[in-house]
């Protein structure tokens, strides 16, 4: 009984403390003036993909002097819609989500709150949607991949000259997530960049079927290396492929940021999308009351496409100068990444393609306006090159070109 009284007294005392605390603690943290921007991230800073967005969002919010409100680990489900609306309730006039699978849930949120702008990276439907407050964005990352490919080609040349293997053996390995336009466009531009300096280069691609699966990515890279690939690149978000390369001593071209710390001997260069210019653009638009572009595409010129952290230890001599030269040519329009004279296409594998007698592409109908049946709706080959990311920011180059062998396919 005595103990009981003690416990009772303790509980009573505790509850008093909390009641008092609750009364006294009404926050005075309401910054009435500052605009609020909400960010929805698929994972947290442990994922290279999300870290790239998180860093850009923080920097942009600081520069534009707005309040940065992040929410992390939001799955591609109804949770995304709920969070987006919750951020709107909180007073955000602009909400951004970073994963492809968030798009339709953002659209649902946009329907409910027409007074708030909802922006979304890598999506495909905003430009045909009736929703005025839903926006897509991407960047011409194929240009960055092409430049990274040039660095890869130079490394191959250097290894051929050093007598490590013959020119015919110059095979590149590529670890992809899904057999999907964004990935196909990425590895094709990378390959064309490499072949522009190393004409005998070929490529093999292995898909993992996941955007983030460290074991599968490592396994895929190891498979490619054992099949005789002399250089590896990847389009998936984990450290699987870069670490497999470091273990095997095979050069690696990375994506989404430098992996030089974990792979000091094999990391060459990385291409990535810099989202800061886009964030500054949308924040600026909302501040000034301007319309945000339905479908925004960043380029090298807007500094949305970056090549970062060239590693002199692994890269071939003269890589930096060569990349600058090619970059200048790309920007001046002297060369095009998907120049149809630089590759050939097998029509049997690509029903939407038309080619001339030599196998060069003359016409391609792409599915730019996303619909259920993937109806090809837009002619994208003109003036001797494939116009990627021009009719829609998200990539639509999904052609299988000669010289690249797909070891498997994952839809």
């Amino acid at each position: 009984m005595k103990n009981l009284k003690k416990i009772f007294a303790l509980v009573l005392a505790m509850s008093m403390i909390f009641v008092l605390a609750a009364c006294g603690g009404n926050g005075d943290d309401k910054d009435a003036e500052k605009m609020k921007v909400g960010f929805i991230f698929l994972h947290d800073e442990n994922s290279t993909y999300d870290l790239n967005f998180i860093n850009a969002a923080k920097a942009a919010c600081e520069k534009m002097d707005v309040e940065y409100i992040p929410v992390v680990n939001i799955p591609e489900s109804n949770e995304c819609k709920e969070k987006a609306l919750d951020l709107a309730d909180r007073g955000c006039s602009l909400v951004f989500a970073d994963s492809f699978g968030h798009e339709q849930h953002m659209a649902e949120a946009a329907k409910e709150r027409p007074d708030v702008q909802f922006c979304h990276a890598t999506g495909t439907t905003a430009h045909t949607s009736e929703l005025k407050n839903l926006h897509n964005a991407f960047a011409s990352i194929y240009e960055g991949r092409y430049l990274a490919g040039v660095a890869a080609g130079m490394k191959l040349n250097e290894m051929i000259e050093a007598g490590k293997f013959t020119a015919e053996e110059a095979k590149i390995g590529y670890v992809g997530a899904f057999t999907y336009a964004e990935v196909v466009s990425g590895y094709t531009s990378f390959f064309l960049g490499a072949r522009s300096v190393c004409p005998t280069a070929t490529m093999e691609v292995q898909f993992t079927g996941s955007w983030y699966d460290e074991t599968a990515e490592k396994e895929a890279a190891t498979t490619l290396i054992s099949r005789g690939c002399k250089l590896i690149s990847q389009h998936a978000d984990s450290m699987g492929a870069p670490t497999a390369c470091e273990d095997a001593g095979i050069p690696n071209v990375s994506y989404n940021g430098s992996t030089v710390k974990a792979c000091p001997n094999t990391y060459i260069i990385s291409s990535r999308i810099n989202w800061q210019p886009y964030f500054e653009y949308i924040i600026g638009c909302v501040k000034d009351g301007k319309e945000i572009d339905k479908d925004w595409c960043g380029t090298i010129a807007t500094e949305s496409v970056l090549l970062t952290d060239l590693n002199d230890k692994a890269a071939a001599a003269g890589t930096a100068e060569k990349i600058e030269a090619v970059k200048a040519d790309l920007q001046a329009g002297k060369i095009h990444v998907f120049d149809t004279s630089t590759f050939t296409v097998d029509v049997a594998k690509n029903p939407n393609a038309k080619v001339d007698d030599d196998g060069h592409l003359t016409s391609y109908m792409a599915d730019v306006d996303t619909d259920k049946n993937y109806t090809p709706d837009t002619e994208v080959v003109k003036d001797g090159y494939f116009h990627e990311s021009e009719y829609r920011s998200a990539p639509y180059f999904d052609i299988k070109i000669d010289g690249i062998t797909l070891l498997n396919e994952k839809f």
Partner: protein
Amino acid sequence: MENHEKHIREPFFHIAKRDTVVWWLAWLIRIASVAAALIVCAIVTVLLTGENPIQVYITMIDGAIGTERRIWGLLQNTAMLLCVSLAVTPAFKMKFWNIGAEGQVLVGGLATAACMILFGDKLPLIVLMPLIIAASIVAGAVWALIPAIFKAKWNTNETLFTLMMNYIAIQLVSFFTYQWSVPKGSGQIGVINQDTRAGWLPEIGDNDYLINILIVAALTFAMYVYLKYSKHGYEISVVGESENTARYIGINVKKVIIRTMLLSGAICGIAGLLLVSGTDHTITRDTAAGRGFTAIMVSWLAKFNPLVMIFTALLIVFLEKGAIEISTIFGLNAAFSEIITGIIIFFIIGSEFFINYTIKFRKSKGGAAQ
């Protein structure tokens, strides 16, 4: 030299089983443990982050019930967790360790998604909805039936069996996510029938989730009555207490196991239905979101009483929602909110120990030796 007093040395304290505890003392211990948990969390918060702990708790409450939308979200999530908890309860009461609720929910959801995708624009709603409901219930029930039959016929270990069935379910969902991905190759299905809303559970009034909450409320009541007042419920308790007794009084144990697991799986199937057709309108590998495992805790904390489970489910969802808000507002790593939730749940589970056992300290003088 022999020491005669040595053989009756008593330790400084020992643990003894309590006989029975009056309900109000049990609740006092529980409340005290929550209070103690909050104090420990406050200390951890100050040490690790330097934030004002009281501000942190206010943020927590705000995150769970701060706006009308958050209250609905809280109720919706509670209903979903409660639904899975209701499903595992009869099995656990029977001492059948059904660790496979996660998988049973997923296949229920997968069946729902399959019907929505394949027949969404082919069948009229009046045919489609019953088909979806039947498919999800059957899928969940079959997923539970397989380990139940093996248990009943060959006495296989149901813990391992149901656990393995989870992985099969997850891989099945992965497989069909490739098959049905929109756009093809993206690896995600996206919102199913976004324009036509075919196969979506209807909104009641203006609220998306009210129908889910009402269905689960009805299920809760039905499960309470079933376990407490029906012959089946009685048979479940007897089998759980002692299989031999059950056999002795003429209960067909195999039949009870199979029947109970069918029920357990069927309710998991309904949870899958509510998640896919009533909430997400899509399916991913994460649709069940660990509820199959959290549900075990909810059910156990409530001592398998469906009405008490309303509160335990609410408590856990409240803590989760509040913890997420903390990491958002204070810019802390998401792992921090999980630390807080972990501490609180640890104390709550620990309180059950003090309800069942008491600690007796050595009497200071004279009492040690008789």
